[in-house]
Protein backbone atom coordinates (compact mmCIF):
# COMPACT_ATOMS: atom_id res chain seq x y z
CA UNK A 1 0.00 0.00 0.00
CA UNK A 2 1.12 3.61 -0.54
CA UNK A 3 1.08 4.45 3.15
CA UNK A 4 3.12 1.40 4.09
CA UNK A 5 5.81 2.05 1.48
CA UNK A 6 5.95 5.73 2.40
CA UNK A 7 6.47 4.91 6.09
CA UNK A 8 9.12 2.29 5.28
CA UNK A 9 10.91 4.66 2.93
CA UNK A 10 10.97 7.51 5.45
CA UNK A 11 12.12 5.18 8.24
CA UNK A 12 14.92 3.59 6.21
CA UNK A 13 16.00 7.02 4.93
CA UNK A 14 16.25 8.40 8.47
CA UNK A 15 18.44 5.43 9.46
CA UNK A 16 20.50 5.66 6.27
CA UNK A 17 21.42 9.31 6.84
CA UNK A 18 22.57 8.38 10.33
CA UNK A 19 24.37 5.07 9.62
CA UNK A 20 26.17 6.58 6.62
CA UNK A 21 27.88 9.17 8.79
CA UNK A 22 29.12 6.42 11.10
CA UNK A 23 31.01 4.86 8.18
CA UNK A 24 31.82 8.15 6.43
CA UNK A 25 32.40 10.76 9.19
CA UNK A 26 31.81 14.18 7.65
CA UNK A 27 29.96 12.76 4.63
CA UNK A 28 26.26 12.79 3.75
CA UNK A 29 23.88 10.44 1.97
CA UNK A 30 20.21 10.32 1.13
CA UNK A 31 17.64 8.13 -0.57
CA UNK A 32 15.38 9.90 -3.11
CA UNK A 33 12.13 8.90 -4.79
CA UNK A 34 12.33 9.07 -8.58
CA UNK A 35 8.60 9.90 -8.76
CA UNK A 36 7.09 11.33 -5.55
CA UNK A 37 3.64 11.54 -7.13
CA UNK A 38 3.47 7.77 -7.77
CA UNK A 39 4.24 5.94 -4.54
CA UNK A 40 3.19 2.57 -5.95
CA UNK A 41 5.60 2.64 -8.89
CA UNK A 42 8.37 5.05 -7.93
CA UNK A 43 11.96 3.87 -7.92
CA UNK A 44 14.51 4.79 -5.26
CA UNK A 45 17.62 6.76 -6.14
CA UNK A 46 20.69 7.23 -3.98
CA UNK A 47 22.70 10.41 -3.42
CA UNK A 48 26.14 10.11 -1.85
CA UNK A 49 28.70 12.71 -0.81
CA UNK A 50 32.01 11.27 0.36
CA UNK A 51 33.70 13.41 3.07
CA UNK A 52 35.66 16.30 1.52
CA UNK A 53 34.42 15.50 -1.98
CA UNK A 54 31.48 16.69 -4.05
CA UNK A 55 28.37 14.58 -4.69
CA UNK A 56 28.67 13.01 -8.14
CA UNK A 57 27.34 10.09 -10.15
CA UNK A 58 27.44 7.09 -7.88
CA UNK A 59 29.16 5.18 -10.72
CA UNK A 60 32.30 7.32 -10.31
CA UNK A 61 32.88 6.17 -6.74
CA UNK A 62 35.81 3.88 -6.01
CA UNK A 63 35.36 0.14 -5.43
CA UNK A 64 35.83 0.55 -1.68
CA UNK A 65 33.51 3.58 -1.49
CA UNK A 66 30.75 1.66 -3.31
CA UNK A 67 31.13 -1.33 -0.98
CA UNK A 68 31.08 0.80 2.17
CA UNK A 69 28.05 2.80 0.95
CA UNK A 70 26.19 -0.43 0.22
CA UNK A 71 27.08 -1.70 3.69
CA UNK A 72 25.66 1.55 5.11
CA UNK A 73 22.40 0.97 3.23
CA UNK A 74 22.11 -2.65 4.35
CA UNK A 75 22.83 -1.79 7.99
CA UNK A 76 20.37 1.11 7.97
CA UNK A 77 17.60 -1.27 6.84
CA UNK A 78 18.69 -3.61 9.64
CA UNK A 79 18.51 -0.73 12.11
CA UNK A 80 14.99 0.13 10.96
CA UNK A 81 13.79 -3.49 10.81
CA UNK A 82 16.13 -5.77 12.84
CA UNK A 83 16.41 -9.45 11.92
CA UNK A 84 17.24 -12.32 14.32
CA UNK A 85 20.38 -13.32 12.40
CA UNK A 86 22.45 -11.87 9.66
CA UNK A 87 24.88 -13.57 7.25
CA UNK A 88 27.61 -11.53 5.53
CA UNK A 89 29.83 -13.27 2.97
CA UNK A 90 33.10 -11.35 2.51
CA UNK A 91 31.47 -7.89 2.37
CA UNK A 92 34.83 -6.43 3.52
CA UNK A 93 36.75 -7.68 0.47
CA UNK A 94 37.43 -4.27 -1.14
CA UNK A 95 37.95 -2.27 2.06
CA UNK A 96 41.27 -0.87 3.30
CA UNK A 97 42.22 -1.26 6.97
CA UNK A 98 40.77 2.10 8.07
CA UNK A 99 37.39 1.30 6.54
CA UNK A 100 37.46 -2.25 7.90
CA UNK A 101 37.80 -0.80 11.41
CA UNK A 102 34.80 1.49 10.85
CA UNK A 103 32.82 -1.44 9.45
CA UNK A 104 33.80 -3.66 12.40
CA UNK A 105 32.71 -0.99 14.85
CA UNK A 106 29.33 -0.82 13.10
CA UNK A 107 29.02 -4.60 13.32
CA UNK A 108 29.68 -4.50 17.10
CA UNK A 109 26.96 -1.84 17.47
CA UNK A 110 24.50 -3.99 15.48
CA UNK A 111 25.07 -7.29 17.29
CA UNK A 112 22.86 -6.22 20.21
CA UNK A 113 19.86 -6.57 17.85
CA UNK A 114 21.03 -9.56 15.81
CA UNK A 115 23.24 -12.61 15.77
CA UNK A 116 25.85 -11.98 13.08
CA UNK A 117 27.64 -14.58 10.92
CA UNK A 118 30.58 -13.20 8.92
CA UNK A 119 32.64 -15.04 6.34
CA UNK A 120 35.95 -13.25 5.99
CA UNK A 121 39.64 -13.52 5.04
CA UNK A 122 40.53 -10.37 7.00
CA UNK A 123 42.38 -10.66 10.30
CA UNK A 124 40.95 -7.40 11.72
CA UNK A 125 37.42 -8.66 11.13
CA UNK A 126 38.30 -12.02 12.71
CA UNK A 127 39.41 -10.18 15.87
CA UNK A 128 35.92 -8.88 16.62
CA UNK A 129 34.33 -12.33 16.42
CA UNK A 130 33.06 -13.87 19.67
CA UNK A 131 33.57 -17.33 18.17
CA UNK A 132 35.55 -18.48 15.14
CA UNK A 133 34.72 -21.46 12.90
CA UNK A 134 37.47 -22.75 10.67
CA UNK A 135 36.52 -24.60 7.51
CA UNK A 136 39.17 -26.82 5.90
CA UNK A 137 39.57 -29.76 3.52
CA UNK A 138 42.06 -32.24 5.05
CA UNK A 139 40.62 -34.82 2.61
CA UNK A 140 40.62 -32.99 -0.72
CA UNK A 141 37.18 -31.97 -1.88
CA UNK A 142 35.48 -32.73 1.46
CA UNK A 143 34.82 -29.88 3.93
CA UNK A 144 35.14 -30.20 7.65
CA UNK A 145 35.11 -27.87 10.65
CA UNK A 146 38.11 -27.13 12.90
CA UNK A 147 38.65 -24.94 15.93
CA UNK A 148 40.59 -21.76 15.21
CA UNK A 149 43.24 -19.94 17.14
CA UNK A 150 43.89 -16.30 16.27
CA UNK A 151 47.65 -15.70 16.36
Amino acid at each position, binding site marked *: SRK*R*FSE*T*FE*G*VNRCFREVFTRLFPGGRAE*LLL*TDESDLLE*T*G*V*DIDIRIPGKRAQN*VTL*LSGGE*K*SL*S*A*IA*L*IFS*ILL*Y*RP*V*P*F*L*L*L*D*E*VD*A*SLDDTNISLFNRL*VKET*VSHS*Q*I*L*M*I*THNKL*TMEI*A*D*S*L*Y*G*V*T*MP*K*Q*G*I*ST*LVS*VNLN
Partner: protein
Amino acid sequence: MRLRKLEITGFKSFREKVVVDFSPGISGIVGPNGCGKSNIADAIRWVMGEQRVRTLRGKRMEDVIFNGSEEVAPVGMAEVSMMLAADEQKFQGNYAECSEVMITRRLFREGESEYTINKIPCRLLDVREFFMGTGVGARTYSLVEQNSVAALVEAKPEERRQFIEEAA
Protein backbone atom coordinates in the same frame (compact mmCIF):
# COMPACT_ATOMS: atom_id res chain seq x y z
CA MET B 1 15.03 -16.04 18.14
CA ARG B 2 18.53 -17.20 17.55
CA LEU B 3 20.34 -19.64 15.31
CA ARG B 4 21.53 -22.51 17.51
CA LYS B 5 22.89 -25.20 15.24
CA LEU B 6 23.34 -26.23 11.63
CA GLU B 7 23.79 -29.86 10.54
CA ILE B 8 25.02 -30.39 7.00
CA THR B 9 25.24 -33.83 5.32
CA GLY B 10 25.89 -34.54 1.65
CA PHE B 11 25.34 -30.87 0.77
CA LYS B 12 27.91 -29.53 -1.72
CA SER B 13 31.42 -30.13 -0.33
CA PHE B 14 30.08 -31.45 3.00
CA ARG B 15 30.09 -35.17 2.27
CA GLU B 16 30.30 -36.19 5.91
CA LYS B 17 27.92 -34.79 8.51
CA VAL B 18 29.25 -31.51 9.88
CA VAL B 19 27.67 -29.81 12.89
CA VAL B 20 28.08 -26.07 13.36
CA ASP B 21 27.18 -25.04 16.93
CA PHE B 22 26.56 -21.32 16.87
CA SER B 23 26.99 -19.08 19.92
CA PRO B 24 25.30 -15.73 20.40
CA GLY B 25 27.02 -12.62 19.13
CA ILE B 26 29.46 -12.45 16.24
CA SER B 27 30.58 -15.68 14.53
CA GLY B 28 33.50 -15.55 12.14
CA ILE B 29 33.71 -18.26 9.45
CA VAL B 30 37.24 -18.53 8.07
CA GLY B 31 39.43 -20.75 5.91
CA PRO B 32 41.28 -20.90 2.58
CA ASN B 33 39.76 -20.36 -0.88
CA GLY B 34 37.39 -23.13 -1.88
CA CYS B 35 37.25 -24.84 1.52
CA GLY B 36 33.45 -24.52 1.90
CA LYS B 37 32.63 -21.22 3.70
CA SER B 38 30.14 -19.93 1.11
CA ASN B 39 28.75 -23.47 0.89
CA ILE B 40 27.67 -23.03 4.54
CA ALA B 41 25.91 -19.80 3.50
CA ASP B 42 24.25 -21.75 0.65
CA ALA B 43 23.16 -24.45 3.12
CA ILE B 44 21.46 -21.79 5.27
CA ARG B 45 19.61 -20.34 2.28
CA TRP B 46 18.67 -23.80 1.04
CA VAL B 47 17.16 -25.05 4.30
CA MET B 48 15.20 -21.77 4.51
CA GLY B 49 13.53 -22.70 1.21
CA GLU B 50 15.70 -21.11 -1.47
CA GLN B 51 14.42 -22.34 -4.86
CA ARG B 52 16.48 -20.18 -7.20
CA VAL B 53 19.25 -22.52 -8.30
CA ARG B 54 21.30 -19.59 -9.60
CA THR B 55 21.45 -18.02 -6.12
CA LEU B 56 22.98 -21.33 -4.97
CA ARG B 57 25.48 -21.07 -7.88
CA GLY B 58 24.10 -24.24 -9.53
CA LYS B 59 22.54 -25.14 -12.87
CA ARG B 60 20.09 -27.73 -11.47
CA MET B 61 18.95 -28.25 -7.90
CA GLU B 62 20.71 -31.64 -7.96
CA ASP B 63 24.00 -29.69 -8.06
CA VAL B 64 23.78 -29.19 -4.29
CA ILE B 65 24.22 -32.92 -3.63
CA PHE B 66 27.85 -33.91 -2.99
CA ASN B 67 29.01 -35.11 -6.40
CA GLY B 68 32.32 -36.67 -5.49
CA SER B 69 35.97 -35.70 -5.31
CA GLU B 70 38.95 -37.10 -7.14
CA GLU B 71 39.11 -40.08 -4.78
CA VAL B 72 35.58 -40.38 -3.44
CA ALA B 73 32.26 -41.23 -5.10
CA PRO B 74 29.18 -38.96 -5.15
CA VAL B 75 26.40 -39.51 -2.60
CA GLY B 76 22.70 -39.85 -3.26
CA MET B 77 21.24 -37.34 -0.82
CA ALA B 78 21.77 -33.87 0.63
CA GLU B 79 20.30 -32.92 3.99
CA VAL B 80 20.50 -29.72 6.01
CA SER B 81 18.93 -29.14 9.43
CA MET B 82 18.70 -25.79 11.18
CA MET B 83 17.95 -25.56 14.92
CA LEU B 84 16.45 -22.30 16.16
CA ALA B 85 15.84 -21.30 19.77
CA ALA B 86 13.25 -18.84 21.06
CA ASP B 87 14.52 -16.01 23.26
CA GLU B 88 12.65 -12.76 24.11
CA GLN B 89 11.21 -13.14 20.63
CA LYS B 90 8.91 -16.20 20.74
CA PHE B 91 7.95 -18.32 17.75
CA GLN B 92 4.56 -17.68 16.15
CA GLY B 93 1.47 -19.72 15.24
CA ASN B 94 1.73 -23.49 15.84
CA TYR B 95 5.18 -23.07 17.36
CA ALA B 96 4.37 -20.39 19.91
CA GLU B 97 4.90 -22.86 22.76
CA CYS B 98 8.17 -24.30 21.43
CA SER B 99 11.48 -23.30 22.95
CA GLU B 100 13.26 -24.87 19.95
CA VAL B 101 12.29 -25.50 16.33
CA MET B 102 14.18 -27.69 13.87
CA ILE B 103 13.77 -27.19 10.12
CA THR B 104 15.09 -29.96 7.83
CA ARG B 105 15.34 -30.13 4.07
CA ARG B 106 16.34 -33.31 2.26
CA LEU B 107 16.90 -33.97 -1.43
CA PHE B 108 17.51 -37.31 -3.16
CA ARG B 109 18.90 -37.48 -6.71
CA GLU B 110 16.01 -37.69 -9.20
CA GLY B 111 13.67 -36.63 -6.37
CA GLU B 112 11.95 -33.55 -5.05
CA SER B 113 12.94 -31.75 -1.86
CA GLU B 114 11.29 -32.98 1.33
CA TYR B 115 10.74 -30.68 4.30
CA THR B 116 10.13 -31.32 8.01
CA ILE B 117 9.51 -28.98 10.93
CA ASN B 118 10.27 -30.64 14.28
CA LYS B 119 10.51 -33.92 12.34
CA ILE B 120 6.94 -33.62 11.02
CA PRO B 121 6.75 -33.61 7.19
CA CYS B 122 5.44 -30.37 5.77
CA ARG B 123 5.40 -28.35 2.56
CA LEU B 124 7.82 -25.69 1.29
CA LEU B 125 5.04 -23.19 1.93
CA ASP B 126 4.99 -24.09 5.64
CA VAL B 127 8.75 -23.57 5.91
CA ARG B 128 8.48 -20.20 4.19
CA GLU B 129 5.58 -19.08 6.35
CA PHE B 130 7.54 -20.10 9.44
CA PHE B 131 10.50 -17.95 8.44
CA MET B 132 8.22 -15.07 7.45
CA GLY B 133 6.90 -15.14 10.99
CA THR B 134 10.39 -14.95 12.47
CA GLY B 135 11.45 -11.96 10.39
CA VAL B 136 14.26 -13.59 8.38
CA GLY B 137 12.28 -14.90 5.45
CA ALA B 138 12.25 -12.84 2.25
CA ARG B 139 14.58 -10.33 3.84
CA THR B 140 17.36 -10.69 1.29
CA TYR B 141 19.22 -7.82 2.89
CA SER B 142 19.97 -10.14 5.82
CA LEU B 143 21.79 -12.75 3.69
CA VAL B 144 24.49 -10.91 1.75
CA GLU B 145 26.16 -12.95 -1.03
CA GLN B 146 29.86 -12.84 -1.85
CA ASN B 147 30.75 -10.09 -4.38
CA SER B 148 27.23 -8.65 -4.26
CA VAL B 149 27.76 -5.54 -2.13
CA ALA B 150 29.07 -2.92 -4.56
CA ALA B 151 26.30 -3.68 -7.09
CA LEU B 152 23.69 -2.55 -4.56
CA VAL B 153 24.83 1.05 -4.87
CA GLU B 154 24.70 0.94 -8.68
CA ALA B 155 21.37 -0.91 -8.85
CA LYS B 156 18.47 0.40 -10.96
CA PRO B 157 15.98 2.57 -9.01
CA GLU B 158 13.28 -0.16 -9.36
CA GLU B 159 15.58 -2.78 -7.87
CA ARG B 160 16.54 -0.51 -4.99
CA ARG B 161 12.86 0.07 -4.31
CA GLN B 162 12.24 -3.69 -4.08
CA PHE B 163 15.18 -4.06 -1.73
CA ILE B 164 13.76 -1.42 0.62
CA GLU B 165 10.19 -2.72 0.37
CA GLU B 166 11.28 -5.97 2.00
CA ALA B 167 11.68 -4.00 5.24
CA ALA B 168 7.99 -3.00 5.19
